[in-house]
């Protein structure tokens, strides 16, 4: 049985559909295509997709009014893929309860990452997302523990939140402000030193040599970055 997640792609531009479909297929998704609202409704009823990529301007209607209709037949996550970049359109889409609003033109990687993030949020991670591999150390999100050759250690709640935030943006810099906001629910001033203490303790748990970290890297003046495996 095909266990791949099924994505319904609604866009009236065949060339664009072909490109996005090849991207999605390459990323391991099954793709259903629809060129207009009518085909989208039919596909929705027949094949129950796991997520919908929805264009706003369609030949027989618009994506904004289609969303509530699609939602009526099941609480499916919807990402807008639109050529309208005005704040008003973006806010309208998100206000309708869309899970994301991606503006054309987009980079393939961006689309795949944002779709993956929505699917993880809605359906939970894929099995391989349950663990994070950092060289010899493996972080198990389910139990909040780190397994290393020399034994297993548990993460504190703050360390867990910190590592999760960095892992969700792996490869990218997360600013100290964003980390503080994730840890203390809001922009906090003067928490930077406390943050550094948490980072040091986290390094002791995940890094082979905490004073020369390979994964949890400091970006001076900006924040921190969890290096990708190939970068470490």
């Amino acid at each position: 049985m095909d266990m791949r997640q099924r994505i319904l792609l609604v866009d009236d531009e065949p060339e664009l559909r072909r490109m996005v479909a090849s991207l999605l297929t390459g990323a391991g998704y099954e793709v259903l295509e629809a060129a207009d609202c009518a085909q989208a409704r039919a596909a929705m009823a027949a094949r129950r997709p796991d997520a919908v990529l929805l264009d706003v301007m369609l030949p027989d209607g618009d994506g904004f009014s289609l969303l509530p209709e699609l939602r009526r037949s099941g609480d499916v996550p919807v990402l807008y893929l639109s050529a309208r970049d005005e704040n008003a359109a973006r806010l309208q889409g998100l206000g309708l309860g869309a899970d994301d609003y991606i503006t054309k033109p987009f980079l393939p990687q961006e689309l795949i990452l944002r779709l993956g993030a929505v699917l993880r949020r809605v359906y939970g991670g894929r099995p391989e997302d349950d663990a994070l591999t950092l060289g010899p150390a493996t972080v198990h999100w389910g139990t909040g523990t780190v397994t290393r050759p020399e034994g297993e250690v548990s993460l504190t709640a703050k360390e867990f939140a910190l590592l999760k935030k960095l892992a969700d943006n792996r490869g990218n810099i997360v600013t100290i402000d964003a980390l503080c906001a994730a840890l203390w629910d809001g922009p906090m001033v003067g928490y930077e030193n406390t943050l550094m203490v948490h980072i040091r303790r986290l390094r002791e748990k995940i890094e082979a040599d905490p004073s020369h970290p390979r994964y949890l890297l400091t970006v001076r003046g900006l924040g921190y970055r969890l290096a990708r495996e190939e970068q470490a």
Partner: protein
Amino acid sequence: MRARNGLKAAGLVAASALLIVVLTAAGLLAFIFYNMSAGRDWTAPSEKVSAALIWSGNGYTFTGEELLGEQRWAMLIGLDGQVVWSLRKPADVPEAYSLTDVASFTRWYLNDYPVQCRVRDDGLLVIGSPKGSVWKHDMSMGMDVLLQIPLWFAFLFFLAIGCVLGLAFLFLRKWFRQAQQVRDTARSNWVNGVSHDIRTPLSMVMGYANQLEEDPALPPARREQAAIIRRQSQTIRDLVNDLNLTMRLDYEMQPLRRARLRPAALVRQAAADLINGGLEDRYSLEVDVPPEAEEVTLLADEGLLKRALMNLMNNGVRHNPDGCAITVRLALQGAECALEVDSAGGPGAPETPPTAPPSVLNEDGSAPHGTGLKLVEQIARAHGGRFEIVQNGAHFRGRILLPAGQAQI
């Protein structure tokens, strides 16, 4: 803004009301004056009537019946107060009059008959009209008041003219604004439409170029060419975005979503976004936020201000294809908050201003440095601040200064 509109509406109502009052008064006066002269038709020409009454030695002969008409009556009161001659005199009109009677009816009515009087050598000729046919009013006025009447008329006249001109101005301005708005909307719809139509094909250019760029089966030179296509498409995308936003700011179609934010966090986020977006190794990026600037807050539109910073940093990247040092700095200058981006010069950039600082905008409003910097200027202005450029050879500094009232320490 709402208070200003309210004031304008009140002014409009007051001016209209005043204009109505003045016009009504003028109309009333015109009606009265017109009918006062027309009203003389209701009276007889007393001079001619008097001339038609002649003493013939033993009695009066009257030849002016036509002048009197059918409705009127006439009598001549002798110098002794007795009626000496009459024609169709009603029965309720007395035969003899005292001095006070005469004083009274010459002004008003005689037994409710409206009368005209004419003094003759042999007495007083009284011409009466039917009861209820003429309204009489005695008018007298101080000379000083009478002399002021032209002034009052002039005052009312100019007041009315002022009201008319004011109303005409308001209506014309509204009409012009509506016409302007129609033009602006047409223009913005056009730009919106073009940018919308560019986005979908650009998605494909960017998407396929990126796929080729990451295809390990292709030789490195081809992949590098694909990377150039991808980067240039991103430049076009940024240009389209800037054009759209600059137009919306120009036509005030982009409301500011102001919230209290820490510029220190914004500067770091913008810098992180630039690096996360794939800043190449030949560029270095340094963020300089002094401790005293950490807790400053601004009331600003986060998205727009970040866009301005990104544009300044990208400007440095674009104009230094061989790489450069970019520094983003947050500084407090007196009561102003300065967001600075240096490129090429780095932290030790020369502080001396150039001899002729280039202006941000040309006189016709176009941007010598491209849409990107025009947008920065617009965003700074929309926040009540300003944007400065200092250029010394290869060193470029863009500085956004936000006013004191918005900074809190």
